[in-house]
């Protein structure tokens, strides 16, 4: 294995260019370096104008999602040596408008996320003196997988439906809605269903399943969406056949 590797980094400087171009940088490739280390090396030593997002370097903050050799990846969890002898092509996340170089505009995701109320909704709050809302390990297990989402948006980059129709509310937002629906302390499922039963909600998904494959936290957004569809269909059948309630 060579000790250096070439990064082909997508550049977009809106004040100069109207299309993306590629710059090549040769960076060290020790076996413990991830793609983000390569980008940091470029920024520190080779070209300080390179723009990209990152923060925690440990797969928690969800900032460093990029397209590495065509696949959506967390660059802090993708080793350079996996791509030896290279080159490694680093591009911004797909399906989002690019602001500069590797930075995309995530405003669309943030606005959609708020719409599904990703927090615990109570009809009536218990008084503080009544104590905590208790939960058993089994009740925690019901939603725990979906709570692992770090909002990295790799699933949006992998979803061709979102690419074709940016109005689609998207995998992570639905998985996070499901995370709160399945929480026994929550009472907001009906309010979320109003948003998610829209045409661009759960029914926009055609179950390509790529969101689940690229998810670095094994959240399974595709599973969350299909479960949502199933429960929505069962509810609508119930209200049709049993209009006065079961």
């Amino acid at each position, binding site marked *: 294995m060579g000790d250096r590797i070439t990064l082909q980094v997508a550049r977009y400087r809106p004040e100069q260019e109207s299309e993306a171009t590629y710059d090549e940088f040769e960076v060290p490739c020790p076996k413990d370096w991830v793609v983000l280390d390569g980008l940091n090396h470029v920024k520190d030593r080779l070209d300080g104008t390179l723009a990209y997002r990152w923060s925690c370097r440990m797969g928690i903050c969800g900032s460093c999602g990029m397209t590495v050799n065509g696949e959506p990846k967390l660059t802090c969890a993708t080793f350079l040596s996996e791509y030896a002898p290279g080159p490694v092509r680093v591009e911004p996340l797909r399906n989002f408008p690019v602001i500069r170089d590797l930075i995309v*505009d995530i405003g669309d995701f943030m606005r959609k996320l708020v719409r599904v109320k990703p927090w615990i909704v109570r009809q009536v709050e218990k008084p503080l003196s009544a104590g905590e809302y208790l939960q058993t390990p089994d009740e925690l297990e019901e939603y725990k997988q979906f709570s692992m989402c770090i909002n990295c948006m790799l699933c949006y980059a992998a979803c061709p439906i979102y690419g074709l129709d940016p109005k689609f509310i998207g995998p992570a937002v639905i998985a996070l809605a499901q995370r709160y629906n399945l929480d026994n302390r929550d009472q907001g499922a009906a309010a979320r269903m109003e948003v998610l039963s829209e045409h661009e909600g759960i029914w926009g998904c055609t179950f390509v399943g790529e969101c689940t494959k690229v998810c670095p936290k094994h959240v399974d957004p595709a599973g969350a969406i299909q479960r949502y569809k199933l429960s929505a269909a069962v509810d609508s059948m119930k209200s049709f056949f049993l209009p006065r309630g079961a």
Partner: protein
Amino acid sequence: MDQNHAYTAYHPRWLRPHVSTYWWLEKPAYLAFILREGSCMFVAWFTVYLLLLLRAIQQGQAAYEAFLAWSAGPVVVLVNIVSFAFLIFHAITFFQAAPQAMVVHVGHRRLPARVLLAAHYAAWAAASIVVFWLLTGA
């Protein structure tokens, strides 16, 4: 993204890469998805074929014989072979997807995906045996 968002000195313009019409050829997984979705056309064809068979039976012996002769033609045989292959593909991919959508609890425990998958294949095998028994009269 808000289409009417005003450009500023700091956001002179976004780059909005265009999704190709042939996006489904970019990855094997996307192609498998399109084939899975497209295979429903062949499922529809078998439904139509079954209805045509029922109509022929209802119309009597001569119509039934004519239907059999038409079905033995090379074009219909070829269409049915291709349709059958897609039908198998459709069933297998549908079964693979099912455990993601179905969450079945037994007591407090969630059934693992492979149990659900096995149940689907068992139901498929059972239905096939019933159909085979009906056809052969064994």
